[in-house]
């Protein structure tokens, strides 16, 4: 390992220093959640097309068995988190603020927890080719576990289209409260580092930067130790600042280059993966285990005993709350993820999914919603925005209904980090405006797309009809011609006969 002490960092603009409140759960070692009575496993836990169910009500499945296969290039399969019986495949509230019903497989564990080796474990994983690694990662259903849930194999295959030089491992965990990555790095450093090396091989990069914020000295130390043998890995301590973990800003901090607007970090030769994803890769390739569980932080002032727990995918969240001793008071809010970018939960019935890193029960005392006041143009939001935007202007334009001008101001460059709303003294829900506008634009685009599609279909149909008509006309003309030909021939023949007869 090369030492990261003298690693030169580059400055990013903006950012905020929220009270990190990680001490609530940082000292708690990862515990395994007892088997819940029922698991609800959604078919879509990733960005892309939902997986297609392969099981039916009444089927018996083994732990690790493929339950649903990926559909299309950007998708991920889903596996059984334990052995048991399928109770049904149908609608169940999604792990999403809307709580809308999505297709979900319900599994009743039989308590045996019996494995089926869907991916064979292997010792000679050093021999794996990049293709084999990416293929296994795809088959294991691994997605970005920092919350982005983009299928990891697609990201590992970026080497085919970009020339990559650096793999960045995102151990920033800059969201307040969350400690699951911290614990993972402290407790399973070896697995994480092995996973990282496998990903680096799949990507064909020459260096690995393992970035960890300086508020996690223990994690830095254990990763340093685990990476000691590796020349490629540099552990880099990051200044503690939100949103340090934003992919593009993390890369800028480390390599000093901005990712071009609307581009990928791969455009500048860098790919970023999360710590938990690295462990999942290790599990998949070395142990032959698909992604069926993850570590979550259950915390907040309203939780009796904040903990870091390893949960099976599909575990209803109320099992986690119960395991942590329940609530000390009625929480003001229940959040999935961190308090900056997390989303409110519709209920505790919804299941844990591959992208869930935290379950927060926030107390009203600390997070009271206050009345919104007019903007006083204090520029706090401008100074806090890591993307160089002028949030107050964008919000004004959105309020006035002119979405297009807000786009001109950079709405689509906004990463939704919430730094602006965090500092606003007038408590203006800036992110709400931006997300509303982004949603509105997306739906407009969809409508536009639909219209175009309808138009295209209609045109195609007309064309088809026209062709058929044309064909008919031609056929008719041909027949007519043939008939005439025949007639003429007949006439000629008749004439000839007549001529001959005469």
């Amino acid at each position: 390992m090369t030492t990261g002490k003298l690693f030169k960092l580059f400055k990013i603009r903006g950012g905020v220093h929220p009270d990190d409140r990680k001490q609530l759960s940082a000292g708690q070692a990862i515990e395994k959640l007892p088997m819940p009575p029922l698991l609800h496993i959604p078919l879509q836990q990733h960005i892309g097309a939902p997986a297609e169910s392969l099981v039916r009500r009444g089927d018996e499945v083994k732990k690790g068995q493929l339950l649903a296969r990926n559909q299309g290039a950007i998708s991920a399969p889903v596996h059984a988190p334990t052995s048991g019986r399928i109770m049904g495949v149908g609608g169940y509230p999604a792990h999403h603020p809307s709580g809308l019903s999505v297709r979900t497989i319900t599994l009743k564990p039989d308590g045996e927890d019996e494995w089926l080796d869907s991916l064979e474990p292997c010792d000679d994983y050093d021999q794996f080719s990049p293709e084999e690694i990416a293929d296994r990662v795809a088959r294991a259903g691994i997605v970005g576990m920092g919350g982005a849930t983009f299928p990891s194999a697609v990201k590992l295959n970026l080497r085919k289209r970009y020339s990559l030089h650096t793999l960045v491992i995102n151990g920033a965990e800059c969201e307040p409260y969350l400690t699951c990555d911290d614990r993972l790095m402290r407790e399973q450093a070896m697995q994480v580092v092995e996973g990282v090396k496998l990903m680096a091989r799949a990507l064909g990069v020459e260096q690995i930067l393992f970035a960890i914020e300086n508020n996690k000295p223990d994690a830095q130390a254990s990763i340093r130790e685990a990476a000691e043998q590796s020349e490629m890995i540099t552990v880099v301590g990051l200044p503690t600042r939100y949103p340090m973990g934003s992919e593009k800003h993390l890369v800028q901090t480390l390599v000093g280059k901005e990712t071009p607007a609307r581009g990928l970090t791969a455009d500048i030769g860098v790919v970023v993966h999360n710590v938990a994803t690295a462990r999942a890769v290790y599990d998949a390739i070395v142990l032959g285990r698909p992604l069926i569980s993850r570590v979550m932080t259950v915390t907040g002032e309203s939780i009796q005993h904040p903990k870091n727990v390893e949960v099976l995918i599909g575990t209803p969240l109320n099992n986690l709350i119960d395991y942590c001793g329940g609530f000390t008071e009625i929480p003001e809010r229940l959040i999935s993820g961190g308090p900056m970018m997390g989303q409110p939960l519709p209920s505790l019935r919804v299941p844990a999914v591959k992208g869930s890193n935290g379950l927060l029960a926030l107390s009203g005392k600390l997070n009271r919603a206050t009345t919104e006041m007019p903007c006083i143009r204090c520029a706090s939001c401008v100074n806090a925005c890591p993307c160089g935007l002028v949030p107050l202007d964008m919000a004004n334009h959105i309020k006035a209904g002119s979405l297009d001008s807000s786009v001109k101001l950079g709405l689509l460059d906004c990463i939704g980090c919430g730094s602006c709303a965090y500092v606003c003294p007038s408590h203006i829900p800036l992110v709400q405006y931006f997300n509303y506008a982004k949603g509105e634009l997306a739906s407009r685009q969809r409508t536009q797309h639909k219209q175009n599609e309808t138009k295209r279909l209609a045109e195609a149909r007309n064309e088809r009809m026209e062709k058929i008509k044309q064909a008919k006309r031609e056929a008719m003309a041909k027949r007519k011609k043939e008939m005439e030909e025949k007639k003429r021939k007949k006439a000629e023949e008749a004439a000839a006969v007549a001529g001959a007869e005469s």
Partner: protein
Amino acid sequence: MSEETTTFGPYTHAKSSISRTMGLVMLSLLPATLFGLYQFGWPAIFLFLTTIVACVVAEAFSLRVAGKPIKPFLMDGSAVLTGWLLAMTLPPWAPWWIGLIGALLAIIVAKQVFGGLGQNLFNPAMVARVALLISFPLEMTLFNQPAPLFSAQAPGFLESLAITFGSSDSIDAVSSATTLGHLKTELGQGVGLPEAATTTASIWQQLWGQTSGSLGETSALLLLLGGLFLIYKKVITWHIPLSMLGTLALLASLFHLIDSDSYVGPMTHLLSGAAILCAFFIATDLVTSPVSIRGQILFGAGCGLLIYVIRTWAGYPEGVAFAVMLMNACTPLIDHYLKPRIYGRDRKGEPLVYSNEGADSK
């Protein structure tokens, strides 16, 4: 996943609020204010209170007329701060109605007519000051020598009541010009600068504030202290104060070097009049200054330039209010043209392109 969600984060918030911001500004004004009130005695205290109370009442009245909730807007402290700043710029022994009219102008004309908090184009206190200066040139330029509370030359309580609320005859006896006003008059009469300067307050007196001048503008040192506190507390950034004072000092030094006989040196410019107060508390007014860093630097430099020009070549010895208002008028334009650069884009807004793409990777 779908976008049809109703609430968004963040679900945690910095301990910031408008009242906290305004409170910090007042806190940082406190030392200079207390000093001013002490040095100019009871009449100054009466005037100070009258102005603030008038502002608050005017604000409450306007909110009522506009049908807005009164309590949250009064509690935000912006009206008090406006009154406070206005009072700081008034001659300390000005009669009560100057404070009252000023307050009405500031709150009603300059702020509420524009749409209330956050909507005004011009700094309310400066609008009031300019309007008062034009309408009541006599009352607005009558400055008195410091007469600290409880000192021998200080007027007693009743006498002070008469000064502020009674007829203004008694004032003439004690009137005295500000440093800048004095120099301007003398220069106008053909007296050379070195000569004229001997009769003004020393640099030390100006620094401390033991000189005649507006109620809260005299103590450059205490104002500076308050200003630095504001920067430390991140209510304002250093860009406007530095660019403004820097420009002012630069121009003053330049002309002073060229002709030290007719141009006042930089120290006098910086330390006298409203320069320091303006740099930290008025030009930096959040609502009426640009939001981007580059915009703020331009804004500050513009203020500094205009202050120098007006002080030196225009009819008013004190150019701060005019300068700030002129620059306020430019703020929307500055904000439109000087935006921060968006991440991943160049200054024109096009996505970045790396020409050495192939070379530096692999």
